[in-house]
């Protein structure tokens, strides 16, 4: 049984779900330390509500964590394919 035999839905969950949990923690820590209203990104003068700022922050963290999880999944699957090709 190699990871590439795992159904797609379960692969998707194994990427999206841990990154979702990580994003919650990251959002909590980040916004405890920084007030989004003090953080005008790149000196842009944009007017957004705090809830919007927190939400966008959360999705950025989720996206970053998803990319990281995807990388892990990709390397795991391709390593397994490589090893099974070598007959191990």
């Amino acid at each position: 049984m190699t990871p590439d035999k795992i159904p797609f839905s379960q692969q998707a969950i194994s990427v999206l779900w841990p990154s979702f949990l990580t994003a919650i923690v990251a959002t909590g820590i980040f916004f405890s330390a920084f007030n989004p209203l003090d953080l005008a990104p790149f000196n842009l003068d944009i007017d957004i509500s705090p809830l919007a700022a927190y939400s966008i922050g959360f999705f950025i963290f989720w996206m970053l964590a998803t990319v990281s999880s995807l990388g892990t999944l990709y390397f795991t699957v391709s390593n397994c394919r490589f090893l099974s090709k070598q007959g191990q």
Partner: protein
Amino acid sequence: MATSQENNGEQVLYAAHKKIYPREVSGYFTRLRVLSLVTLLGIYYVTPLLQWEGRQAILFDLPARKFYLFGLTLWPQDFIYLAALLILAGLALFFFTALLGRIWCGYACPQTVWTEAYLWMERKIEGKRTQRMKLDKAPTTAKKIRTKVLKHTVWIAFSLWTGFTFVAYFTPVDELANKLLSLSLGPWETFWILFYSFATYGNAGFMREQVCMYMCPYARFQGAMFDSDTLIVAYQPERGEPRGSRRRGVAPTSVGLGDCIDCSVCVQVCPTGIDIRDGLQYECIACSACIDACDEIMDKMSYPRGLIRYTTENSVLGKAQRVLRPRIMVYAAILLLLCGLLVAHISQRVALDLDVIRDRNTLYRETRDGLIENVYTLKILNMDSQSHRYKLWAEGIDGLKLASDQTEIVVEAGSVYQIVVRLQADELNLEARSVPVSFYLQAEDSNHLSTVEEARFVGPGETR
């Protein structure tokens, strides 16, 4: 069968999903469980409605960056409490898992709580297990469509209520309800209500036991916290085997069988669809449904109850059982210690914060009277629920003087006050180029509300 399952453990784990139709069950543990589930649901839906001193009792006020917890107002500075609380919750989970097994899974986990609620609605609308199975197999008729539409409407309505309640922890509930009724909800509020509703609908209506099997980190590592004295749900094979059917009232020994009549009721009630008679399995969430189910069968057969029961590995093996073992005592000691620390810390918490920032532009300057002067910006945060007038002074150098253009410091409840102060000292009293000084801030009407903040005073030093 048990062996084939062991060999193909991975295949079984990732097998295509078969829909599970848990059979309804009644009995002592089921009542206990329903009591726990209803209580927890009640707490979830009622909490945002509670009021305290004219505001919502529990509210994460995101725009104001405050967390109201009844009489207590927590600020981002108090993040440490939240972290401590999470660590405590984690430790408590270790403690209760070692002692009582997967009690959390069966009685308190939100996944279980909402799944049971959705299952209950399903039962009310689609009927018992056999009726539900028949309905799903039946060809599409108007009646089937009506039943399914009704079920999903009720589910979605309940999900939306759940999502609304979730957002009400972050936006005052009356404000949110008004916005909803006047159709003026903000885009993100709408989004989060729908997001949470959809997650509830999907998890409790469709994913169910699959969340436990594929998504739950706790389910994967809880085994590591088990020992031979941990409470588990187990079948007694030496009493039950060899299993076999027989007529009611027949004594097992007279037909050469064990107590298990192989009625498979324990399998039908299982929300994760496993057979507890195959031994302790990773999928078992210790919901105790099979205990009640089998006890009922045993009653009908006039056999003693407890063929499936709460027990421990040691008691199954006939060994002595220990509740107070080192692992439990260590967990309990750490838990108590942390709880004590947290309570002590919160009761000692000073609702006042002082931040000192040295003027970055000039290191120091000389006054007309020949004193060395440093300039600081002070940020005073009053975290109390009423306004206060404060005294401010500085120490650390002989004859240190504090001056400011602002003569009185009054800070409103829950706000920040900024003040620029000048410290002046005679160069002769400076022992080094940079000397530590302390700013003292104290509320005039309360001795408890005081704080000290360190800073540095810079002079010309040796270089001169």
